[in-house]
């Protein structure tokens, strides 16, 4: 069991191997493992972010759709209301127009009646004068009895 210079040589060899490992193996591998760890962590974070973004987008989509539905319903309701209003207005207008026409017709009729009455009155007075002339066998001067005739006319 001789201790000899091999000991020193082996110690030097050990030192050289440590230097090689510390310089060319450990830091390089450690850096690559760390880089992969970071990459995986980033990937997971990105996936998580993507998931939450998707959920957000879904939520937004749902909100937009709901809004659109509400708006469509509102528009439909407005349209219905407008239609109803229009119909109502048309009805009202038609009624007014009808009333007006009826009123005009009535006024005309009344006018007609008045006119007929007037002419009737005139005719009646003429007829009365003519009748009185016949009865009296002489000419009645309408001028002379104008006042009287007017009175009769007024009574009619």
């Amino acid at each position, binding site marked *: 069991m*001789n201790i*000899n210079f*091999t000991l020193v040589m082996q110690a030097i060899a*050990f030192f050289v191997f440590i230097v*090689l*490992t510390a310089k060319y*193996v450990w830091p390089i591998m450690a850096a690559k493992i760390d880089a992969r760890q970071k990459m995986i962590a980033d990937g997971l974070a990105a996936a998580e972010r993507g998931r939450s973004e998707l959920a957000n987008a879904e939520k937004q989509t749902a909100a937009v759709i709901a809004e659109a539905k509400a708006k469509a319903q509102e528009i439909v309701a407005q349209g219905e209301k407008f239609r109803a209003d229009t119909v109502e207005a048309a009805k009202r207008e038609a009624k007014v127009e009808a009333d007006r026409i009826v009123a005009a017709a009535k006024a005309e009729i009344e006018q007609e009646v008045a006119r007929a009455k007037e002419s009737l009155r005139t005719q009646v007075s003429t007829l009365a004068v003519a009748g009185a002339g016949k009865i009296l066998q002489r000419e009645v001067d309408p001028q002379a009895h104008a006042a009287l005739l007017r009175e009769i006319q007024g009574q009619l």
Partner: protein
Amino acid sequence: MAEVTELTPSEYISHHLTFDTVGIFGHDATSFWAINVDTLVMTVIAAVISFGFLMWMAKKATSGVPSKTQAFVEHWLAVIDDSVRGIYHGDSKLVAPIALTAFVLVFMLNCFDFLPVDIMSWIYANVFHAHYWRSVPTADINTTFALALSVFGMMIYYSIKVKGLGGWGHELISAPFGLRAHWSAPLLIIANVLFQIIEYVSKPLSHSLRLFGNLYAGEIIFMLLGMLAAAAAGWAVVAGILHVLWALFHILIVLLQAYIFMMLSIVYISMAHEHH
């Protein structure tokens, strides 16, 4: 081996346990100035395979989807990183690479124990013309002492770095019994220093001898089974079965000793960071 019948059992064992030692600087092979060529060559082979693989992997590795090989390497890096984080709370970036190096190196060197001793010694003798050649560098006390003393050196380095030379010196005379302004102060200092010496000596000793002992014993048992196989044809079958069982059990020992060595390295280095 063909010559087994000519060897006595003790010659067989000692033949397998002899290093290919070469004297350097003109000294004799038995002096301190000698190197075990087999230990160094096997270490270099293991290192080229393992650290070459790791460096190639680091270069090729992607931070995207990893290949299965990369996943395998990353798994072991994560195991070691977790072990280091669990024990070591200092801020040196060097402890994890030290732990990785210790683990990979000790594991690879231990793995040479799986090479069948007699077939390998035939190959060493007839292909490489090396009469004495031992396959397992961690069964060489020089290797385990070298590793343990390197860790010991890091312990001292980190102790001084974290606490300062004064803080470390103060700890040597004040721990574990404390220091009081009292007539007993010199006694306390002596007791503290003694305890510190025991602690500092026992750490590298147990660190290196545990690994050495396990691998050396493993090697010896393979050799004993080889001898048993040489005894008779019937024993060869028994020895073959035992050989397989021991090899299977050895997979656990090889991995476990590498892990223990790494963990103790981390523990010793992180203990050096603690203030008493």
